[in-house]
């Protein structure tokens, strides 16, 4: 009887081992496949967040302008993700096959102003971001936030990004007219939000390039947000991230709500945020020959 028992134990052990080995193999293969897809992914999207009271359609004009004059193959496709108040995602548009730099806009049903709403929106952005990463498996991305969108990004980077940072790099962030100190003109009066941002700045990724763009309709405001509140971003980012640049834009379309379609800002996005377009082979040759002629 005792011997019989022993055999049963041994047999159970062997069966369990085989099951575990087979399951491990299967899991490992799947996992490595996934990791390879992610690691070798060439996709590097630009993820945009609109400001308060704006919808996912906020950047339509901007995208149209960015795509102007580009051949169909080089155009950025536009995907819109709307997060409703029940934390569900509603997707419209699609990413064209082979488009390595699509533009993804994440908007919220609750798009109201105020610090508590911004925190709420950052949490919802994290939900959308998680879904996007598992769907498209990109390993890096660029970020643009208009107005409160920049604040949502700041909350996201300080509180949520660390769980992705080993796999997904945020390369560049541009905030456009983001009121880091809400309507306060001077940092003498720090809002609760700005204090929180500064307190948690250590969590910001050190490899990030940040561009803070301010619109200036008058000498100290874009008509809605005081200049002092926009450039207060330096107390958060400067010295913490790799590069920090403040740019102020004036002239036509420098009013707060017009900023996303301001031609100068579109030029800045083209220059600083988007990856260098891969110039087709013969195009590069042409350029070189032009260079040679001018040298002669």
């Amino acid at each position, binding site marked *: 009887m005792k011997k019989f028992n022993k055999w049963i134990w041994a047999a159970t052990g062997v069966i369990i081992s085989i099951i*575990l*080995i087979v*399951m*491990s*193999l299967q*899991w*490992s*293969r799947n*996992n*490595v496949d996934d*990791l*390879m897809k992610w*690691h*070798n992914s060439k996709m590097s999207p630009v993820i945009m967040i609109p400001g308060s009271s704006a919808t996912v359609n906020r950047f339509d004009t901007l995208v149209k302008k960015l795509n102007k004059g580009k051949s169909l193959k080089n155009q950025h496709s536009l995907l819109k993700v709307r997060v409703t108040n029940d934390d569900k995602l509603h997707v419209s548009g699609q990413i064209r096959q082979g488009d390595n730099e699509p533009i993804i806009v994440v908007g919220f049903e609750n798009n109201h102003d105020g610090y508590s709403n911004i925190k709420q929106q950052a949490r919802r952005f994290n939900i959308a971001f998680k879904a996007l990463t598992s769907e498209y498996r990109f390993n890096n991305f660029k970020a643009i936030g208009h107005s409160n969108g920049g604040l949502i990004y700041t909350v996201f980077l300080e509180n949520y990004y660390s769980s992705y940072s*080993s796999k997904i790099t945020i390369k560049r962030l541009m905030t456009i007219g983001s009121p880091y100190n809400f309507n306060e003109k001077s940092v003498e009066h720090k809002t609760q939000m700005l204090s929180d941002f500064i307190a948690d700045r250590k969590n910001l990724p050190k490899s990030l390039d940040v561009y803070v763009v301010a619109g200036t309709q008058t000498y100290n405001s874009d008509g809605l947000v005081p200049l002092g509140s926009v450039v207060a971003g330096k107390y958060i980012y400067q010295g913490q991230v790799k590069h920090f640049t403040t740019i102020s834009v004036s002239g036509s379309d420098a009013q707060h709500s017009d900023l996303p379609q301001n031609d100068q800002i579109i030029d800045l996005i083209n220059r600083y945020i988007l990856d260098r377009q891969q110039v087709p082979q013969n195009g590069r040759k042409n350029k070189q020959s032009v260079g040679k002629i001018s040298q002669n």
Partner: protein
Amino acid sequence: MNKLLNISIRFYSSKMMLILRDTLKMMFPIMLLGSFAEVIKGAFLTPTGFMATLFKITKWLPYNRDLAWIMGSIFHCTIDMIALYGAFGAAYYTAKVYGRKSAAAGAVGLLSFLIISFQLSDSGMPNFSPRLMSEGMLISLIVGYVCGRIMVKLVDVKKDELFQLIKPVAVVIVLSAIINMILGLVGRLEIPTYVASFVTQHTQINALLYVLGMGLLTNLLSWMAFGGPFTNSPSFGDNASLANMNAALKAGSAWNVPFKFTDTTLYHSFANFGGTGVVLAFIIAILLFSKKVNNRRVSKWSIFPAIFNNNYAMMLGIPILFNPIYLIPFLLAPLVNMILAAGLLALRWIPAAAYPVPAGTPGPLIAFIGTNGNWLALIFGVVLIVLDVLIYMPFVKLADQIIEEAGVADEEI
């Protein structure tokens, strides 16, 4: 062997050893259940754990979060605070051996260790060094012993005990507070990160020797109940592992990674089956060769946690801790494993374990998953276990002999 036998017998019957054995005996049931809780939480109920990833347990098991919470609180209050029990036990049994009232001594030992591991926290709430609590059992045993001796020395049994206690307690409190301050000044070296940077900055041969040395040190310290450099499960977060993984993902296989000899590829993949000291092989050796009912029973209880690389039950139950007989195989088995693994890696028979492995993966499967299913790595792991069982075998038999003779010796006294 005979010499080792004699030394061990003498060691076994010393007062110090008696205290130690009683303390470990008291801790064994607590830590055994604690290790069950740790394994159930870590491998079964944490989404990144081995069983949880394989069988998606956290997706379908109802109340899995609540269950994980319960297991977590059990684990944190047992294994994660193992040193507290050590301090209490050592003080209690020291006083007992010297024939004093022991409960007060136990409380004083506990008090002393709490003071030593006390830290200031921002919120002003009491806070204790988690490192000392979980890895400082050696310190706690010494603290407990010293406290017990102080109690024995300063309390006179013949007089009324109530007010006599004030003096020894005062001495202990002041001493402990001073030690606490000194520890705060010394600070702590972050060895694990240092290992990773060493591996990436030096040549392969140097890195190999370094990993072997550190592995040996880990096992030695763990035999002395003190956390070593490689105590924790592989993190795959250090630079060398990340570089290996990225290279493997880029090339599509793990054959040509930049850092072949790291703690992950050698120590965690091949020298940690069942926890430090290849305890899984030790358990098998006892079940096959030992005739002592007690040891066999402890081993049977320890199988489950040891499969998921938790060896606390064996360390306390046999015990392996501070046991001179088992020191040699405890150091030798992992070292042999690492050297053989390094040989096969150098000969390019097996690829390096470069891919991520879930937490709590059973020992021999770590290299299998880490190489993305290299069968030779799996077979090699099994061969190593057999080899380790053979390494442990003579010592298991020797221990049987010692227990018999020491048992006789005990009776004579």
